[in-house]
């Protein structure tokens, strides 16, 4: 990244109006344009690709954005959303004042929104917090966070909720996005996040996409894939999906499979690897063990149906008992003629697993023959079976060829899956068996959806069970480590994991959470089975605060709306899907009284004293060594703190933080809205980042100092960063300084690295065996999802995104050209299914499930998706086509991530 750019090159890159000095001026000092614009580097607001951008500002406004030719991620290119980074903050209905529901001059849940001062907003917010906390303790309050939090915002939220309130009820929207990827990383490698990086795209020979429509969801990564495919005739693309999508247009092979059959296809590939003798025996013997876990784990549905709609009850029953189909019995190696009723006995212990022998693993794969798998996996009823079989065989050929490098990419198709953790693990199963993992151009690679799903949600640990740098709240060593860094008395941190984001909604409905603060997300639009949650929010006794930049659907159900600053109105940092951390400077000021999310957390923390939150607290169900059952002990403030010390002083304005001064020369004259609004002489974003770094240093999560990321010649760095050097391939001793020298490969993660031995039926008695440095090859069986099309609800529903819109559309639908391109969410329906229902393209249809019904306009042929008969696709960006009222809130029982990709619906004509 040290090469210099000439004026000519800049002009050719599209910087057509740039004024550049003598040849050889490096890009970082991109000169002001003739128009007087000034440019600074930044990162795209949208997906997990993390494209580098250059931002132009003029007279206090963002005026343009360009792809950064120096960024190794996107080399000067941006997608349609990327260019809109310049426009997203300028919608005319930006929120600029706090809004509170009021009647007769005071807060009333049934009132309408009136502008209030920040003081009044925080006064009411605090009074309501105290009311919920007094009634229910730390579990009665919650914060919903985000994979779009900046690193510093997420870290501040962790401190406020976990260290301050001693609650673990902090969970991000990233739970909906890549929790399954996290769980599989932890179970397979003992540590989170990918071994590979985006360089693999150019280094590999075959790209296999599984449930990843990169062409629409990661367009600039797809541009790299297509570029490489066009350059190299031997390069191949295989697209596995449940409907024909935009990736199919460049793919060499498209495999349309039946929803959930991905598990069976992986097992077929693994069986072929064994049958063809394609196992990398040396790699497996040195670096891997075999494992499995319980199969009767339920579907993450509610355990009781007290609040269920009548129509929901039959599906909820499958959380308790499943009657296996004949195929499901065969897939588990059971006698299909035997009893097939299975109590879901391991529903609460889905994460348990144990070691098995290679022979057991091989035996478990035996049912997954080509005939068996093709029979259950073919997704397009109009495709001949022989053709489908030939494609599966070709897929196995691609993987098994020792002469070809292979990368498997996946996104929401795997992660949003009631067997999401399993299917992620199966990808590693195949790559590990082949020795095609953690090598340049080879590996199973989980793509993330959000810009800082990795950087914030995962690395900072804004999950209800996590602490920074892969720490777990239920691990006493991780708690002690966090307490030491944060200067907390021992046993301050709560050892019981909090509610995940889906559970928070269920808790809201059950009255177990009565105070909720939503930050940088739109959960009432994005959570499946939404009719329950909007009803609970509006009609029960609770208090909901939503911080956002525009009035979102969640704002409409809120009691208090707080106006926030947008990405370039604050300092921040994101971490992308390849472990690349990228920081940016604030470019412009937030409008009106809008404030940074970080300022909101700091300011709110001033309203709590240690005496109020660090006394003995009830935590129902808490059971941990060193703690009394059901409660947290009172802890004594120490180190100069007293019961009257505020959480602000105890957690944020610490002596170390105050020593990080604002203004700072790294700002190069840019402002800081957090410091200005708080009248601070310290630099909160930098202080928090430097403190957060302490968690990761020395064990493979190493981040560089704050200032290095802002250096002119840096375009983000992939952690671990050791001695200023980034790491492209983890666990590979040639690249990763944490892999033991001479080991070749070292899967050094420490989570769940002592396991009992057992067989396919379960663990055997005996002491757990340590497996340091090893990755696990899991056997996981195929199973049907909890809800299948039937006579009443006869179609599969798959939901997702479109290229032009980000998530719930709150930013991109306010960008004129993006809205005009895709003005509303459509129902993609096969022409024959449309005809059978008397529907034509453009007409209005009802989409109805057991949980709710909505309307959308029909799209049939043409356009970007071609669905097979029996399946429909509806994007979720459009609050006017509220598809999450219809979708099912089943989750992976291990990761707790919702399966937004499959449930059963019926479609009828709107009369």
């Amino acid at each position, binding site marked *: 990244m040290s090469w210099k750019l000439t004026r000519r*090159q800049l002009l*050719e*890159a*599209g910087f*057509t109006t740039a004024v550049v000095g003598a040849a050889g001026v490096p890009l970082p000092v991109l000169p002001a344009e003739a128009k007087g614009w000034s440019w600074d580097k930044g990162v795209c607001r949208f997906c997990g690709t993390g494209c580098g951008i250059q931002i132009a500002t003029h007279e206090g406004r963002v*005026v*343009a954005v*360009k792809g950064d*030719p120096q960024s190794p991620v996107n080399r000067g*290119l941006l*997608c349609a959303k990327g*260019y809109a980074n*310049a*426009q997203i903050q300028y*919608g*005319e*209905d930006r929120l600029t004042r706090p*809004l509170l529901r009021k009647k007769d001059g005071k807060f009333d849940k049934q*009132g*309408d*929104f009136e*502008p209030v001062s920040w003081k009044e907003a925080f006064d009411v917010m605090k009074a309501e917090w105290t009311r919920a906390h007094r009634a229910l303790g730390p579990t009665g309050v919650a914060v919903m966070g985000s994979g779009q939090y900046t690193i510093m915002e997420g870290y501040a939220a962790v401190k406020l909720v976990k260290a301050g309130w001693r609650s673990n009820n902090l969970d991000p929207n990233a739970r909906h996005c890549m929790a399954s990827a996290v769980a599989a990383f932890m179970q397979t490698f003992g540590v989170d996040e990918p071994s590979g990086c985006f360089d693999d795209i*150019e280094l590999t020979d075959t790209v296999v996409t599984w449930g990843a429509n990169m*062409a629409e969801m990661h*367009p*600039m990564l*797809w541009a*790299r894939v*297509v*570029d*490489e495919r066009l*350059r190299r005739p031997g390069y191949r693309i295989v697209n596995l999906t449940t409907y024909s999508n935009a990736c199919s*247009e*460049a793919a060499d092979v498209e495999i349309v499979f039946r929803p959930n059959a991905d598990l069976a296809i992986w097992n077929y590939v693994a069986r072929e690897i064994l049958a063809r003798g394609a196992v990398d025996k040396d790699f497996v013997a040195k670096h891997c063990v075999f494992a499995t876990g319980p199969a009767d784990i339920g579907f993450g549905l509610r355990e009781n149906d007290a609040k269920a709609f009548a129509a929901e009850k039959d599906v909820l029953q499958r959380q308790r008992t499943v009657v296996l189909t004949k195929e499901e019995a065969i897939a588990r190696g059971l006698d299909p003629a035997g009893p097939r009723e299975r109590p879901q006995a391991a529903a609460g212990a889905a994460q348990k697993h144990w070691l098995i022998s290679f022979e057991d693993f091989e035996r478990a794969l035996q049912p997954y023959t080509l005939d068996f798998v093709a029979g259950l996996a073919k997704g397009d009823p109009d495709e001949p079976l022989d053709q489908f079989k030939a494609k599966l065989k070709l897929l196995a050929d691609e993987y098994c060829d020792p002469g070809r490098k292979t990368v498997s990419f996946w996104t929401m198709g795997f992660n949003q899956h009631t067997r999401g953790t399993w299917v992620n693990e199966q990808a590693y199963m195949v790559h590990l068996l082949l020795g095609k993992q953690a090598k340049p151009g080879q590996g199973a690679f989980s793509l993330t959806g959000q810009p800082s799903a990795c950087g914030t949600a995962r690395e900072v640990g804004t999950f209800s069970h996590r602490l920074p740098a892969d720490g777990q709240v239920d691990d006493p060593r991780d708690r002690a480590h966090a307490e030491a860094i944060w200067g907390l008395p021992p046993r301050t941190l709560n050892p019981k994991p909090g509610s995940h984001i889906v559970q928070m909604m269920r808790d809201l409905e059950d009255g177990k959470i009565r105070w909720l603060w939503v930050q940088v997300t739109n959960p009432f639009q994005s959570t499946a089975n939404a009719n329950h949650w*909007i009803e609970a929010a509006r009609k029960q006794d609770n208090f909901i605060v939503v911080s956002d930049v525009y009035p*979102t*659907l969640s*704002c*409409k159900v809120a009691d208090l709306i707080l106006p926030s600053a947008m990405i370039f109105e604050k300092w921040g940092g994101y971490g992308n899907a390849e472990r690349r951390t990228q920081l940016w400077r604030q470019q412009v000021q937030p409008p009106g009284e809008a404030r940074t999310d970080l300022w909101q957390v700091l300011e709110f923390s001033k309203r709590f004293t240690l005496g109020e939150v660090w006394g003995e607290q009830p935590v129902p169900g808490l059971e941990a060594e060193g703690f009394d059952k059901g409660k947290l002990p009172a802890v004594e403030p120490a180190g100069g703190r007293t019961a009257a010390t505020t959480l602000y002083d105890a957690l944020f304005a610490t002596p170390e933080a105050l020593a990080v001064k604002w203004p700072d020369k790294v700002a190069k004259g840019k402002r800081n809205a957090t410091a200005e609004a708080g009248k601070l002489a310290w630099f909160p974003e930098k202080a928090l980042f430097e403190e957060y770094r302490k968690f990761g240093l020395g064990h493979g999560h190493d981040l560089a100092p704050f200032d290095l990321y802002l250096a002119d010649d840096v375009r983000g760095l992939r952690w671990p960063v050791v001695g200023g050097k980034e790491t492209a391939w983890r666990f590979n001793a040639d690249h990763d300084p944490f892999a033991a020298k001479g080991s070749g490969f070292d899967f050094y993660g420490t989570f769940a690295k002592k396991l009992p031995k057992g067989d396919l039926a379960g663990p055997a008695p005996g002491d757990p065996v340590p497996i340091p440095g090893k990755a696990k090859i899991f056997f996981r069986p195929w199973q049907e999802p909890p809800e299948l099309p039937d006579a009443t609800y006869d179609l599969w529903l798959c939901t997702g995104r479109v*290229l032009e819109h980000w998530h719930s*559309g709150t930013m991109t*639908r*306010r960008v*004129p*050209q*993006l*809205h*005009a*391109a895709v*003005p509303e*969410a459509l129902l993609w329906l096969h022409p024959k299914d449309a005809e059978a229902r008397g529907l034509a393209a453009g007409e*209005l249809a009802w989409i109805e499930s057991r949980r709710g*019904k909505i*309307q*959308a306009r029909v799209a049939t042929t043409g356009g970007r998706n071609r669905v097979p008969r029996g399946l429909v696709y509806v994007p979720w960006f459009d*609050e*006017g*086509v*509220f598809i999450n009222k219809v979708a099912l809130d089943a989750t992976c029982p291990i990761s707790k991530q919702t399966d937004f990709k499959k449930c059963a619906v019926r479609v009828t004509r*709107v009369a």
Partner: protein
Amino acid sequence: MRTLAAAALLLAATAALAADKPAPVKDAQLGLSKASVFDVPSPPAFKAEEGAPGAGPLPRRISTEIPPVIPHAVADFLPITREQNSCIDCHELPGPKKKGEPTPLPRSHYADWRHDQGKILEKHAGGRWVCISCHVPRTDAKPLVGSRFRP
């Protein structure tokens, strides 16, 4: 009609929020769908651009820094596959633009920053093959909310 009504409501809401003694705003008036969260709206009809290439005048660009939208119908020209790219077939012209001819790819599209440090190639850079990743089609849908973006 619906869009107009929505715009009027939005103006009312915005004005209400901006005034010193504002009228309270109902939740249904907030956001992009002027409806209660319990309502089930009927999404409005819209029409994709139907004009043939060159049939109408080019729309004014929002900014020279934002890729121009596709001003003509796209149905006949998609999908872009490995073998077939109708956009490139028409638009890969040496330039400058001549009246009555397709808009030529700008010079930036020939620079390869991935492999050649920005060297200008004879053909467009491979990373730009999927034109619709950056250039969006259009419909007759009117904006839901005004934009204060000024380049």
